[in-house]
């Protein structure tokens, strides 16, 4: 050991290893792990090795879960569900509280275990992962306590299959398990095969607190085990992981009725304006891309810096990077530990090499890496174009890209130039600029002058191909609650459009004179196909409607995108338009009732009257369905803002041709979305009659676009359209499956709406507004 005199010369930190003896003792006592099913560990089956990524040493042997293991776990969860879900919120809260307490009591044990399993520095597992995991259980113990008051008439979803990643193993477990249990669900959780150990320790904690058997089940294994869980008899799948796997899960679960939440990849922008505290932003990069070895889905991996400070920023960043300590994750002075697995290390190396080959310049910390273990020195790229692979693909390693921009507009454009939308970080001392950019960035979480700040009280989750659903806060709880069931109502089968002339006498005198076209961009447009189809009422053909095609959908989506001002209008402005629309409906009430009558609607007058009331109701909601300020950390304003998706596709029911359409379109546009609606295939004329109402109601062109024709065929084009952010579908089971399958392309949020009694209370409500919005959490730390 160096002498004091020698150290006084070097002033080195010296080694400061956290002891791992207790954890190693536990691991060797357990030897091989089985699954945790029905409150006890099964005998280990065929196992796989779990390694310490920092040393390559074997830590444990863990059972590879089979399909029957998964089924046994689901069965145990199913069996435990009735009792667990019927416990009072208070009783469930007691269990969650006990779990939180026990995580705290085992905090050092869990931190060390996490670090040797995952390779993350002990500083992070000790100060971030484990305390946040405990915080999630505390927070959700509170939701369990208040459930009946806060979410009246909602119940648990049922058995939840949960698949978590290897980057924050215990924390992701907490994010998944805590809300599920609070809401009264039971779970089958599959931890990642690289990092199953803290989940297994958590299983022991569940037993220790006496959690009822089968409420939490843990099945270990690889992707095949996860796939078996996705296909098992569960009511919900919650997945955190890669976008590719998320896409596959979306396809597999399509049409199954399983509730789905996906928290996927990201390539999050980290925007530094010239007026920012540059040192603070540099430190932010440390917390962004050099946190957890860069293996963070929301990592600020695309650094965008305003040109006039870019050189200074890059210099400071390089200087700061040079001080990072990379090495033994158990050392308390380590900033960056080991990459989780050699496979991941190879992937990082390959991507970085490819980036360099494409011309980007890599700057890497000049640090000495340990001779063994999966290490990668922190770095960043400059001279990197948006087209370079490293700008586009999630590296999932400690390497960021640095690009410059000139103006705020350009910053937003670059920030949003990605298929992802998980998080963003905005650095500026100008509150106007920072909040303006925060509002414009397409991301579920935005940190102003900060990055990677988490709390159980705020929602976390993405836009776009970063997935859908939120974890944390009220919005996270809602993902584990089922709305009261809506009685289903069979819908009339869509009649195949007849495009040939029909040699029948028209049923109404004026039917042939009125040619219903499509409504695109606020104007009536002929269908691109040049075809129209006959619309039959109870007494025969009552008119013709345009036969829309995929090109009309393309045009309608483009028109909808052009109407972006609607999303920025105030709720009050939108309310004014909706009230006006209601008024205009009132003045033409009889006409609309007649049309419905001729179409054979059972209650035409009532349908119109309800549509008018609904327009009033959504007008009223337009400036009232708003967000929250979450109680998170002190001196942080955490704004949860419901934002419109942007452009939505809406396939409307065949029944209730007027009310069905308006019941779906009104909430969507009240929240600021623009829609491409596919009206009732059999009776589109009530929808086409609305064109004039829209025109006279000051509804801006492009906000509502209507394409008549074969609904499911058009819905397929909409669902597969990459520039549609959300899609609602009310129709057949097969149609719903098709829409969910096709939606996997850009992972748009989908809502398959059951056909229902549109005249009834279930035809309107806050849940429609909820499905028309996504929550963006904006974190604004303050203090001078």
């Amino acid at each position: 050991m160096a002498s004091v005199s020698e150290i006084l010369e070097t002033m080195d930190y010296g080694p400061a290893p956290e002891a791992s003896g207790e954890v190693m003792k536990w691991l060797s006592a357990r030897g091989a792990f089985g699954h945790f099913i029905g409150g006890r560990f099964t005998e280990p089956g065929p196992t796989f090795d779990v390694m310490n990524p920092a040393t390559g040493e074997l830590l444990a042997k863990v059972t590879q879960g089979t399909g029957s293991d998964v089924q046994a776990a689901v069965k145990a969860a199913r069996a435990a569900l009735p009792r667990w879900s019927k416990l009072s919120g208070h009783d469930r809260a007691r269990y969650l509280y006990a779990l939180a307490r026990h995580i705290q009591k085992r905090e050092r044990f869990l931190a060390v275990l996490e670090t040797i399993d995952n390779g993350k520095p002990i500083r992070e597992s000790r100060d971030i992962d484990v305390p946040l995991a405990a915080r999630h259980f505390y927070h959700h113990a509170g939701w369990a306590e208040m459930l009946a008051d806060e979410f009246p008439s909602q119940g648990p979803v049922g058995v939840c299959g949960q698949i978590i990643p290897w980057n924050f193993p215990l924390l992701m477990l907490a994010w998944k398990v805590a809300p599920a249990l609070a809401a009264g669900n039971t779970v089958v959780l599959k931890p990642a095969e690289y990092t199953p150990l803290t989940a297994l320790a958590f299983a022991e904690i569940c037993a220790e607190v006496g959690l009822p058997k089968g409420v939490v089940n843990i099945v270990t294994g690889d992707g095949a085990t996860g796939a078996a869980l996705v296909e098992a008899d569960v009511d919900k799948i919650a997945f955190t992981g890669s976008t590719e796997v998320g896409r596959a899960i979306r396809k597999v679960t399509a049409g199954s009725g399983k509730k789905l939440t996906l928290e996927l990849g990201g390539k999050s922008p980290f925007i530094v304006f010239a007026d920012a505290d540059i040192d603070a932003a540099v430190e932010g990069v440390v917390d962004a891309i050099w946190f957890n070895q860069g293996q963070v889905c929301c990592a600020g991996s695309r650094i965008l810096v305003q040109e006039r400070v870019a050189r200074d920023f890059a210099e400071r960043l390089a200087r700061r990077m040079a001080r990072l300590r990379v090495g033994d994750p158990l050392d308390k002075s380590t900033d960056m530990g080991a990459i989780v697995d050699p496979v991941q290390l190879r992937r990082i190396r390959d991507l970085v090499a490819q980036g360099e080959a494409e011309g980007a310049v890599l700057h890497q910390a000049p640090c000495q890496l340990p001779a063994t273990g999966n290490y990668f020195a922190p770095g960043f790229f400059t001279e990197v174009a948006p087209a370079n692979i490293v700008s586009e693909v999630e590296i999932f390693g400690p390497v960021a890209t640095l690009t410059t921009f000139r103006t705020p507009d350009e910053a937003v454009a670059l920030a949003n130039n990605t298929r992802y939308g998980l998080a963003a970080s905005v650095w500026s001392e100008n509150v106007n600029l920072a909040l303006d950019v925060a509002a414009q960035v397409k991301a579920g979480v935005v940190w102003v002058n900060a990055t990677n700040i988490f709390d159980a009280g705020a929602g976390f989750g993405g836009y776009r191909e970063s997935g859908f659903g939120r974890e944390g806060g009220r919005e996270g709880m809602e993902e584990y609650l089922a709305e009261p069931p809506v009685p289903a109502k069979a819908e009339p089968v869509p009649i195949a459009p007849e495009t040939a002339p029909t040699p029948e006498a028209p049923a109404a005198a004026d039917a042939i004179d009125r040619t219903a076209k499509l409504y695109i961009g606020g104007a009536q447009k002929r269908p691109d196909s040049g075809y129209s189809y006959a619309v039959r009422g109870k007494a025969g053909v009552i008119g013709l409607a345009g036969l829309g095609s995929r090109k009309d959908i393309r045009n309608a989506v483009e028109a909808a995108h052009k109407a972006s001002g609607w999303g920025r209008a105030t709720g009050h402005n939108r309310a004014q338009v909706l009230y006006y629309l209601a008024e205009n409906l009132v003045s033409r009430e009889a006409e609309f009732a007649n049309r419905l009558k001729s179409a054979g609607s059972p209650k035409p007058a009532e349908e119109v009257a309800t549509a008018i009331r609904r327009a009033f109701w959504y007008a009223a909601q337009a400036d009232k369905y708003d967000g929250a300020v979450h109680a998170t950390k002190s001196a942080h304003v955490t704004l949860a803002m419901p934002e419109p998706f942007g452009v939505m596709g809406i396939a409307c029911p065949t029944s209730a041709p007027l009310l069905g359409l308006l019941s779906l379109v009104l909430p969507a546009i009240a929240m600021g979305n623009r829609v491409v609606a596919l009206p009732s295939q059999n009776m589109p004329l009530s929808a086409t009659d609305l064109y004039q109402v829209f025109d006279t109601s000051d509804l801006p062109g492009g906000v509502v676009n209507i394409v008549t024709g074969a609904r499911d065929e058009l819905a397929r084009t909409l669902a597969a359209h990459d520039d549609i952010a959300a899609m609602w579908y009310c129709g057949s089971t097969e149609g719903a499956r098709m829409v969910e399958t096709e939606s996997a392309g850009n992972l748009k949020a989908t809502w398959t709406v059951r056909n229902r009694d549109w005249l009834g209370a279930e035809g309107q409500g806050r849940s429609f507004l909820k499905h028309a919005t996504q929550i963006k959490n904006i974190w604004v730390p303050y203090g001078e």
Partner: protein
Amino acid sequence: MQAEAVHSLSRNERNPGVPLALDWFDHVAVNTPAAERRAATLTTRRTVKKQWQAAWLVNAIRCMDLTTLSGDDTPDRVRRLCAKARQPLADHIMEGLELDRLTTGAICVYPTMVSAAVRALAGSGIPVASVATGFPAGLMPLNLRLAEILYAVDQGAEEIDIVITRAHVLDGNWSALYDEVAAMREACGAAHLKVILATGDLKTLRNVYKASMVAMQAGADFIKTSTGKEGVNATLPVSLVMARALRDYGARAGYRIGFKPAGGMKTAKDAIAWQILMKEELGNDWLRPDLFRLGASSMLGDIERQLEHHVTGRYAASSRHALA
């Protein structure tokens, strides 16, 4: 790159100051929550244990301005403090650490105590620092404040810790602040000038940065956080901002400026925390007494106890250590 510029700086050349340059700090952005986050994680990202901890604590003594600034100070009291400065650790601790010689960085006293201190430290090589300029409030006519500097220098002080007129900062009257500090620098002559910003009175980190920059432009050798008499004295966020300011000054002007946190730091843990800050933000050179001082009175007692524990393995009692 700035990093290279800092490393190429001469170690011994005093900062002569530069003409007042408002554009070096006028639009500075200091984000307080971010500074607080950085400060809070400095000591969770780094630690020193065992032999390294002992060495870092010894280094803290080496960089310590052992201070007494009380209304009841007397020459005898100061002599006792000087004895401690000459021999800050008990012999058996020194032996256990295998050290031959260790003194504090300086002694810091009021002007009327300087001569007593100089006599008590004769032959030790330990410089005497004197506060001056109407310490701690500084609200005296400038000529009297300058006269006080001359007096302290005349008494043998090699370092002068002056206080600034806080109002100049609060009013943004940078030229007045600059002129005042420049005049004090001139009065110091060969004595080194430490400029106390009294950051607890300046309130905002922007003010701290700006006042730091003006003080350095006016010729400060050291910038120092506090008198020890403000409501809030040395804090890590304030120190972080001052460290960054002196780094920026070095990059622009080419001179190295020292940093002295003072007031409120009482524990060995504090001693480690500030050294981590220096090493992480500025590098090892700012762990030497020519560029780093800890202004403290009671910290030494805690460090001695910790070092005794390191040497003996037994927890120590302060009654067994010589009083400062």
